[in-house]
């Protein structure tokens, strides 16, 4: 079962974990990304392309399900204004095997970072704003999965 959710609301890790766990298996991997205070960050604004976002996340989840034996995939991504420490993204995978669950979770995050149409704009404590730029390490991490399959 795939569950995709994109919106301003926070998520409840306990509720989401129980949902995945209820789909069977015994191995549940999850990843949470939060707004990280790197010194003088005030807030993040997360913009997305509503017509495309859920479609892109579904595609990532479906690819993961095709490549690993998963009972459930949950991807929740917040948008709007977020403060330091706030949750941004949650990925949970459920499988019979811990290797499959953890790898699929890692794959989904790497693809989400490079494919899902979200953009972060940061506001510093001095009031300046800046659109965050793509990181080469994210592109590398994403491409490694493609190479692995060939």
């Amino acid at each position, binding site marked *: 079962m795939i569950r995709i959710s994109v919106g301003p609301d926070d998520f409840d890790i306990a509720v989401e974990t129980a949902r995945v766990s209820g789909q069977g298996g015994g191995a549940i991997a999850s990843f949470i*990304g939060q707004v990280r205070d790197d010194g003088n960050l005030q807030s993040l604004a*997360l*913009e*997305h*392309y509503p*017509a*495309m976002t859920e*479609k*892109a996340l579904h595609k990532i989840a479906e690819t993961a399900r095709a490549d690993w034996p998963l009972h459930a995939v949950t991807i929740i*991504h917040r948008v709007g204004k977020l403060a330091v420490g706030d949750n*941004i*993204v949650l990925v949970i995978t459920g499988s019979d095997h811990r290797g499959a669950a953890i790898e699929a979770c890692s794959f989904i*995050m790497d693809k*989400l*970072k*490079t*494919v*899902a*149409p*979200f*953009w*972060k*704009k940061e506001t510093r404590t001095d009031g300046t704003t800046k*659109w*965050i*730029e*793509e*990181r080469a390490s994210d592109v590398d991490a994403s491409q490694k999965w493609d190479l692995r399959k060939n």
Partner: protein
Amino acid sequence: MARSLDIVYFAWVRERLGLDQEQVALGEGIETIADVVMMLVARGGVYAEIFADLAKLRFALDQDYGLPASPLGSAKELAIFPPVTGG
């Protein structure tokens, strides 16, 4: 009959243009994403500045990624945006 295409902009592209979306008429010979972008560059000003370097941009046709060389086909919506930075 002139074809039309909705173009949607995101992140700094949207901000610098001061525009979320616009509808453009596609003349003869406008067959690919790159053709549309060249048409926008030809407007000059901020369009020329933003769209001159295709490598800094990403494109989606009807919500699926496309490359500059991708044919528009019967797509209704072209999205132009910077590389994504979610997660």
